[in-house]
């Protein structure tokens, strides 16, 4: 196959600027799909993705395009997730491409994620073509946006296609720009095999389907292959490329191609994103650069609201894990919540997505405990434990010291919000590293921050304090010794294990006070008074009281309309069912997430 007729590219954009719509339109215009097969946003094929309008897993599709020069070109379009939690997946997807289309909204212009994505693409040495979308909007101002692109990003944009992905206007210009402005892949089809894994999918019949970009050499059916990082070896059963929503087998994938392979692989863990596939008998000297083992950074407890659904939750987690190597879980028990699982996630969005998929696709009603990070506890006996569940914290007398994970955060922000963002980092125990003006109006601020300060609501705070103009990325830096304590919550004098969390001692009082206030709002009044206390060790540091309910009388005459009266009582009883009983206090399930909302208002 002629490499000069192949284009491997992705589309990058700020959320809502029309990335998926453009992808759909390209697929439709090139005739890959018939109208009948065309379902809006073909690439986002999880319900959840379509609903939230975000891409969670990478997807890829191969398109044949007959260009104006009379030749047929193969386009491999790789869709990328758009969130920092999945940054690593994004970067692997980009590594599979040679070029990128940058979509900018003709009305909104450049936004925070536009920049973050462009810089990420440029980091991977991709050629970027800007495209101005939504020019059919009355508020569209393409001239201004062209100027912005040239001034802020420094990309030539005078000839950028001006399109409406929605109506299909000028999509042809985009296709021609892909042919003429993006480079073809390079690579020697006879060299030792190096294929980059950028995604994988579990299929119950074929096993793991590995999505890869062949950089060097050729991947064929029947080859014995080896994953260079995990060391796992397999015999290739099938290779092929991506139709829209289907897999089309072929004989081989030569250098420059994007496609998939199957090899009766039972476990996604053997085929980590970023790993390099090579031949077992004639391996490449070096793996492709950039592989990282992704470890969960955020942990929380997931419990079925109905204890009898515990086996269902386990089955569902197992199934999700087949497609998501980053998801980890192990059984745990809580006095308040019963049997459940301690689960590890890449970040809060990952957590939220898993939680929603469990609730939606597996019909489970869940109680989630406050998310936390992995602490290292060095004990006086010289041993160290990695703590993922605050309840397992050893007695203070056995603890020599503790460490918490630290990240290096890079925040890109327009100059007027620099002060606000630095204040925020300061409040979150950040340590200033540097600030650098990228151009007159934008700066890159670097801070080290404790991970546990950013897992709750850092994104939201960042967004609100910069009006959405700050973009944020972080990288694990390691661990740092820190003065940490376990904050316990006592409800009606009983400690509720599921509400305990680890906190920096300097903010324990503040957190404890807010936690009590929040719980006071969340816990309905009972027939008796309920003290809510926050304690560190045996010392109570904050207290609130839920006053007893003194009157709740249905003093109204409904005549003989008993069914109505009963419905009222039933409603009352139903409300209780959705709560958790701790001692004789009913705690609503939402209360277990209270710690997440401490910084609201």
């Amino acid at each position, binding site marked *: 196959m002629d490499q000069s007729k192949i284009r491997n590219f992705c589309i990058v954009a700020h959320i809502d600027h029309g990335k998926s719509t453009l992808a759909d339109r390209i697929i439709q215009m090139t005739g890959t799909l018939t109208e009948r097969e065309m379902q809006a946003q073909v690439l986002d094929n999880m319900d959840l993705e379509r609903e939230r309008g975000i891409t969670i897993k990478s997807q890829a599709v191969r398109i044949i395009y007959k260009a104006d020069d009379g030749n047929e070109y193969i386009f491999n379009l790789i869709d990328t997730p758009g969130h920092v939690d999945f940054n690593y997946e994004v970067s692997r997807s980009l590594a599979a491409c040679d070029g990128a289309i940058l979509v900018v909204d003709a009305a909104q212009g450049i936004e925070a994620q536009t920049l973050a994505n462009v810089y990420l693409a440029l980091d991977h040495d991709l050629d970027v073509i800007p495209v101005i979308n939504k020019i059919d909007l009355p508020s569209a101002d393409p001239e201004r946006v062209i100027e912005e692109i040239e001034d802020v990003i420094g990309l030539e944009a005078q000839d950028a296609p001006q399109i409406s992905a929605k109506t299909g206007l000028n999509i042809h210009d985009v296709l021609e720009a892909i042919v003429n402005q993006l480079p073809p892949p390079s690579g020697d089809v006879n060299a030792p095999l190096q294929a980059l894994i950028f995604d994988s999918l579990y299929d119950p019949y074929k096993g793991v389907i590995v999505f890869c970009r062949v950089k060097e050499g050729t991947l064929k059916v029947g080859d014995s292959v080896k994953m260079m990082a995990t060391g796992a070896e397999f015999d290739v059963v099938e290779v092929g490329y991506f139709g829209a929503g289907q897999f089309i087998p072929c004989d081989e994938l030569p250098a420059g191609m994007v496609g998939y392979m199957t090899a009766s692989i039972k476990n996604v863990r053997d085929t980590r994103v970023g790993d390099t596939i090579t031949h077992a008998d004639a391996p490449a000297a070096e793996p492709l650069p950039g592989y990282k083992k992704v470890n969960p950074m955020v942990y929380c407890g997931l419990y079925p609201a109905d204890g009898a659904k515990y086996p269902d939750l386990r089955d569902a987690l197992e199934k999700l894990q087949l497609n998501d190597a980053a998801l980890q879980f192990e059984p745990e028990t809580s006095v308040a919540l019963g049997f459940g699982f301690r689960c590890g996630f890449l970040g809060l969005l990952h957590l939220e997505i898993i939680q929603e998929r469990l609730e939606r696709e597996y019909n489970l009603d869940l109680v989630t405990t406050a998310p936390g990070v992995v602490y290292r506890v060095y004990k006086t006996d010289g041993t160290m434990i990695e703590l993922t569940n605050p309840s397992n914290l050893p007695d203070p007398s056995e603890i020599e010291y503790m460490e918490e994970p630290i990240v290096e955060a890079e925040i890109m922000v327009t100059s007027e919000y620099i002060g606000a963002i630095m204040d925020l980092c300061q409040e979150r125990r950040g340590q200033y590293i540097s600030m650098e003006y990228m151009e007159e109006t934008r700066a890159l601020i670097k801070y080290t921050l404790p991970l546990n300060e950013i897992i709750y609501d850092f994104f939201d705070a960042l967004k609100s304090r910069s009006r959405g103009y700050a973009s944020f990325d972080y990288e694990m830096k390691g661990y740092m010794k820190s003065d940490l304590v376990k904050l316990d919550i006592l409800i009606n004098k009983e400690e509720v294990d599921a509400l305990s969390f680890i906190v920096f001692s300097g903010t324990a009082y503040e957190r404890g006070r807010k936690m009590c206030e929040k719980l006071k709002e969340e816990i*309905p*009044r009972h*027939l*008796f008074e309920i003290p809510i206390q926050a304690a560190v060790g045996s010392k109570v540091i904050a207290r609130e009281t839920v*006053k007893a*309910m*003194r*009157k*709740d*009388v*249905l*003093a*109204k*005459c409904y*005549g*003989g*309309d*008993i*069914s109505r*009266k*009963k419905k*009222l*009582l*039933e409603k*009352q*009883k139903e409300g*209780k069912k959705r709560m958790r009983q701790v001692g004789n206090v009913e705690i609503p399930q939402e209360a277990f997430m209270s710690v997440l909302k401490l910084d609201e208002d």
Partner: protein
Amino acid sequence: MTPIELYIHIPFCVKKCLYCDFLSGVFDEKMQRRYVAALCTEIKYMASQVHGVEVATIYVGGGTPSWLSEDLMDSIITTVKSSFRVNPLAEISVECNPGTLSAEKLNVYRSVGINRLSIGLQSANDDELKELGRIHDYNRFLHTFDLVRKAGFDNVNVDIMTGLPHQTVEKLEHTLNAVTMLRPEHISAYSLIIEEGTPFYDKYKFDAVKQHAGMETEDLPTDEESYHLYKYTMDYLEKKGYKRYEISNYARGGKVCRHNIGYWDRVPYLGLGLGAATLYQNRRADNIRDIYKYCEIAEQIAEGKEISTELSSPFYDNEETLSKKEAMEEFMFLGLRKIDGVNRSDFFNMFGIDIEAIYGPIITALRNQGFMDAKEGRLFLTDIGIDVSNQVLAQFLLDK
């Protein structure tokens, strides 16, 4: 055969009160006549279905039944008496609003055997009456009460309401004083409930939520204040010789409302008229709520047409047979509304099982918490148990 009760619904009002969500509306006299004719058809129809059973009480409620002209009321009661076997000592009550009665009307009531009247006063403060959207003022009530007494009615109820917007203890005391001064035999004291679909809901829904959550309110009394108003009412009435026999009902001289007690004792009753509820032979049913449809069905029956229905009456909108579990639940949550509570032996006789076998742990827990007590084979709520009776009674619903 156990005697039964009859509830007769008159869905007409001069004007809809702003807090009211009962099935009633403003209709002209032509519609009233058509409706009463239909009602009489249903009365005769149902009498033929339950033939021979004795009627112990009749309650004509609304709406404002006293707004009907006397000949219509006459025809209703006369039809009942000629169709059912009404006990000569039956309690026959009619709900009245001040300003809708006259001496002539009351004489007709007496002559057809109506022996108990219930007057909807709600408040003796004219500003509160206006706020509630009532058609009368306090003077009008005094006039009506005087007419009622002069006509010889010696079993009269007066309705009052607590928990009104901006109600203070002083205002409530004025109402209580104004009512008890007249020495009616019976007083019903209801709490204002903000019901969906009423103008009050639009106006006070946020306040109602705040009130329930124990927060500060704008117009409605706070939860704490409404608790005091309710307690104040109770103490005041007890002091004046009115004995509380049900959550919101007080009587002096033993003149309780027998019909009302029947509801809590699960005495069988037939609901006649639009939307009326029935409990008969362990089945609960509600009549249809569309007045035109109701009249059409009655008119077809009057013409001798067969109405095909799978329910026990062509007037029913829905009907369900109570399971034993549901009957037990009802026995508890209705019976415990009475101050005297329920009898253990009644439970055993009705269901063939000891009450403790079903509700033992709940009863024990509630007794330990001081919300319930037991004496001489009876189980009943304590004062503080009644205060939070919704919470307590809900616990007697059994799991499905």
